[in-house]
């Protein structure tokens, strides 16, 4: 197995482990991701106040 294949294999293993985490743990991680995303958007907004918020809800259009 060459180094690139090893890298892909490690990545796939990491993804499998992530998918197997308990649901509650994934939801906690999701909150952390959301806060990081919102902080990034606020920072971008501070640098360019003219940019529109692109925050989206998950719900489908009816």
């Amino acid at each position, binding site marked *: 197995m060459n180094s690139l294949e090893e890298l892909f294999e490690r990545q796939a293993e990491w*993804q499998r482990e*992530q*998918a197997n*985490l308990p*649901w*509650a743990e*994934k*939801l906690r*991680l*999701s*909150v952390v*991701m*959301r806060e990081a*995303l919102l902080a990034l958007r606020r920072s971008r907004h501070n640098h360019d106040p003219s940019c529109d918020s692109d*925050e*989206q*809800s*998950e*719900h*489908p*259009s*009816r």
Partner: protein
Amino acid sequence: MKDVARLLNDMLSAGVIADYAIFGAVAQMRYTPTVATMDADILVVMEGKDTLDVLKPIYEFCTDRGYTPDRETIRVGEWPVQFIPVFNPLTEDAVREAETGEIEGIAFRVVRADFLAAIALNTGRPKDFTRILALLESRAVSSEDIAELTRRYRLQSEWERFKERFLDE
């Protein structure tokens, strides 16, 4: 999310809603790796469908318990929660056939993986297509499961387009 589950179960017991099930990204994460999402989306079945403000009893119930509205959501702990009344036969059946999951010991009604995929297909935004692919990748659902639901809800042409575009079938 435990507080959200508890609130929904209380709402159900009090007769404010006839049924509910969580869907969208929060439900998806039962099966797939973590994804970022802005809110928790709840499909609700209401008894008094013909009133103008169908969600009013939910908002009143939440406000009485100290949860405050925040734009189109209600903030419950760390989660903005969006209540969406069922709006077609697909979403009605998604709630009726939902599973009972568990969040930190609290029962929580969750839309099944095949219905999550069918609703995503029906909605059809890029992130919905990503959801279908993630559910397939995690083996929470098979192409055959999705095809079965697309026949039931007349989404065959959307499913054919999706397969052609993303699954190379």
